[in-house]
């Protein structure tokens, strides 16, 4: 009889309590399912501060070295990439750690939180497993509550671990209170994005879409603070990552910006709960509407089908890349102003072979290319997803060769990534040319974007290779964008040896326009991409479908 009242929606006072029935059990269940995943994330996060600090000890042994770095970092490209200039006021080891690392560790914490929440909420509903769980004595809000509690707790532990790991260092500027604030800043970002994911999983019926929206939120937060940090305007104050950076950790630390994160977390959590009461288990906010009773002539071609299946992701990523380009593009004007006032600072970058604007453009181009690479990996994974969902089987039981089936998916992915990359290049070029009055930048920017295409093809090729030969290992394809970003982008600042970057196809791309175009690497990458795809296809022809 208690089951009867349990399953009733939260209506009266006792109902409210019952709507959380089973939360404890679900928390234990989630922790058990994540018993490897969460500790791995936590260990990595705990190691990052110590590792980085020890690399600082080698790279910047004296205060003078750090001073010099601070000077060279005071460029628009570095500010946009890393964080506000306030940290230069006291560039000790601690504030350097915060300035150079936080924007990225914060995004990674956000990524962890989003994946965690989506995995335990929308993915469960999408696969129908939630239905089995909800049919037991489990309240309507129990699952969301449990997922958020697990995510919040993980972030608190993460903050403490980061604080502890940082506090063990005896380098100058590191204080215990500062280390605590440093850890808390990470926790604050993590809980905001966990709560954001709790909202996006209510909106859409697909876990892929829910993660996509929440991850786009992280990207927006990063870019907003970039624009705000370069332009010294209020934009950084609308970004949770910006709030974390405005704690001025290890300079003149203050806690109150983190309250903004807590407040936003509360608002988002309440919103998630309200939205969850307006939808059915298993569906999003919008009910599915009936569609066309017959297929168009395009859809019944393999390419048309692939195009249709990729449509959502294609549009989502194109919009993301365009927004990214617009946001970064808007910074060009600020840079131009800065250039007028502080020309002396440009020396360091000018030595590297380009003017500030071009250096900035090269850096943003890498960010765009990595974003497109993420799309490329996701889109190429689509075939595996189709296979695992059992949808590849009936299609391959048609008179359609595996090569053609893969070919149609690949055609969409190759074309899609090229179009995105060129759109990004064109938009950035437009803004750069507009801000500086140098029309040639438009063409240069498109050429710079195009130079990344062979690296993107290599990325796709690697995933195809894995898919054909070892589909269980297809996740290894993620190493390419992760490496390109982690080593290619951050390696520059962290002073990592260049051969590390060369391990990724992106390390071989001429970084135009600040570098000259060079044909051999482009040709080599193209050849490698072709070979990878060919081997992958040959492997697929030999293997069984639906192997798990």
């Amino acid at each position, binding site marked *: 009889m208690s089951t009867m009242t349990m399953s009733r929606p939260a209506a009266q006072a006792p109902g409210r309590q019952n709507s959380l029935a089973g939360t404890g059990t679900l928390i234990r269940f989630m922790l058990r399912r994540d018993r490897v995943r969460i500790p791995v994330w936590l260990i990595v996060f705990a190691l990052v501060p110590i590792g980085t600090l020890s690399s600082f000890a080698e790279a910047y042994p004296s205060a003078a070295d750090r001073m010099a770095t601070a000077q060279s970092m005071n460029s628009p490209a570095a500010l946009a990439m890393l964080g506000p200039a306030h940290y230069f006021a006291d560039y000790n080891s601690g504030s350097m750690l915060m300035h150079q690392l936080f924007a990225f560790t914060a995004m990674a914490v956000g990524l962890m939180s989003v994946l965690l929440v989506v995995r335990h909420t929308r993915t469960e509903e999408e696969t129908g497993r939630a239905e089995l769980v909800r049919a037991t004595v489990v309240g309507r809000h129990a699952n969301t509550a449990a997922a958020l509690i697990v995510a919040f707790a993980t972030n608190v532990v993460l903050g403490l671990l980061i604080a502890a790991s940082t506090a063990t260092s005896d380098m100058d500027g590191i204080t215990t209170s500062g280390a605590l604030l440093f850890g808390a800043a990470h926790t604050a970002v993590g809980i905001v994005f966990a709560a954001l994911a709790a909202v996006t999983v209510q909106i859409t*019926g*697909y876990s892929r879409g829910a993660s996509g929206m929440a991850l786009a939120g992280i990207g927006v937060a990063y870019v907003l603070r970039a624009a705000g940090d370069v332009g010294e305007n209020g934009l950084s104050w609308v970004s949770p990552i910006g709030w974390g950076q405005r704690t001025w950790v290890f300079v003149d630390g203050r806690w109150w910006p983190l309250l903004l994160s807590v407040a936003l977390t509360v608002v988002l959590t309440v919103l998630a709960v309200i939205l969850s009461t307006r939808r059915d288990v298993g569906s999003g906010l919008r009910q*599915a*509407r*009936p*569609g*066309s*009773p*017959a*297929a168009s002539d395009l*859809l*019944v071609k*393999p390419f048309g*089908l692939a195009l*249709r*299946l990729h*449509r*959502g992701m294609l549009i989502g990523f194109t919009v993301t890349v365009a927004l990214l380009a617009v946001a970064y593009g808007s910074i060009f004007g600020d840079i131009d102003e800065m250039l007028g006032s502080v020309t002396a600072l440009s020396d360091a970058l000018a030595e590297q072979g380009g003017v500030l604007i071009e250096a900035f453009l090269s850096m943003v181009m890498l960010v765009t290319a990595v974003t497109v690479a993420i799309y490329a990996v996701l889109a190429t994974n689509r075939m595996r997803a189709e296979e695992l*969902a*059992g*949808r590849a*089987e*009936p*299609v*391959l*039981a*048609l*008179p*359609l*060769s595996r090569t053609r089936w893969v070919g149609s998916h690949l055609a969409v992915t190759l074309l899609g990534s090229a179009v995105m990359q060129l759109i990004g290049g064109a938009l950035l070029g437009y803004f750069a040319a507009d801000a500086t009055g140098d029309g040639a930048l438009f063409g240069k920017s498109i050429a710079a974007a195009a130079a990344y295409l062979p690296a993107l093809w290599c990325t796709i090729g690697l995933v195809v290779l894995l898919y054909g030969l070892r589909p269980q290992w297809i996740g290894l394809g993620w190493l390419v964008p992760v490496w390109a970003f982690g080593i290619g982008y951050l390696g520059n600042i962290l002073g990592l040896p260049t051969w590390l970057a060369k391990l990724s196809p992106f390390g071989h791309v001429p970084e135009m326009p600040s570098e000259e175009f060079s044909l051999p690497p482009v040709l080599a990458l193209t050849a490698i991409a072709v070979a990878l795809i060919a081997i992958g296809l040959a492997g697929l022809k*030999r*293997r*069984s*479908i*639906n192997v798990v």
Partner: protein
Amino acid sequence: MSTNSQPTSGAAIAVSGLTKTFGPTKALDNLHLTVGTGEVHGFLGPNGAGKSTTIRVLLGLLRADSGTAKVLGGDPWNDAVALHRRLAYVPGDVSLWPNLTGGEAIDLFARLRGGFDRKRRNELCERFDLDPTKKGRTYSKGNRQKVAIVAALASDVELLILDEPTAGLDPLMEAIFADAINEVKDAGRTVLLSSHILAQVEALCDRVSIIRQGHIVESGSLSDLRHLTRTSVQVETVRPAAGLESLPGVHDLSSTNGKLHFDVDTDQLDGIIGHLHGLGIRSLVSQPPTLEQLFMRHYGEELAEATNGSSR
């Protein structure tokens, strides 16, 4: 076993010595299967026996470890594309694309296969009472299954490979499906029908094969198979039928109110009836073995093993 009762030449499907392992699991173990052209062939067996695995090998989706398979005279692995033009497949668990409507999925399957008849497709949608405007995820289980059935039936192919096609269909739809299969049969096409619904197999199939643990344990026409099992008889005779139990082929003899009940091996039926005739038959009810009994016999062995194994 009567595997060799059918000639292999001109067979739509001819499989011999097929073996397939998944790690430690032996899914197919020296499997022989013949499906003659133009016949509706029932493919029966307990869960996990290897029916779907066999079908996937026949579709060239799985690569067998050893053995040979011929589908419509071709090699299912190497000639997959050419063969798939001539066959249609309905999986047991249909998974549709969430953002495609059922109608779009039907058209996609049928038109990629070629030989697509729009009029027939619309007529089938109507017959199966299928709304083609719904999105993949919003279909109920049975309706999802219908999408695949309509797509398969709308194509003009020689061979239909159906893996539990009616799982989830309501009885009315099952009847409509049976009509459709009979039409397919009349048109001279071949059907391989894996199913757990014995009444359906009995009504539709010319021949059946029973698979257990990756091996065909019984194969033949239904009447062939009936001969392998027992007919139950209920008889009342003028003179008492003493000594009946000592006759060959008689089992489980019992009597109530002067009526005798017993099972008899079907191939001994003639001799027994002759004996009873000599005693003067007052009434006689004889029930042919149902497929269910036949099937249960093969299940039974497994069941007995399982219960023996688990009894403490």
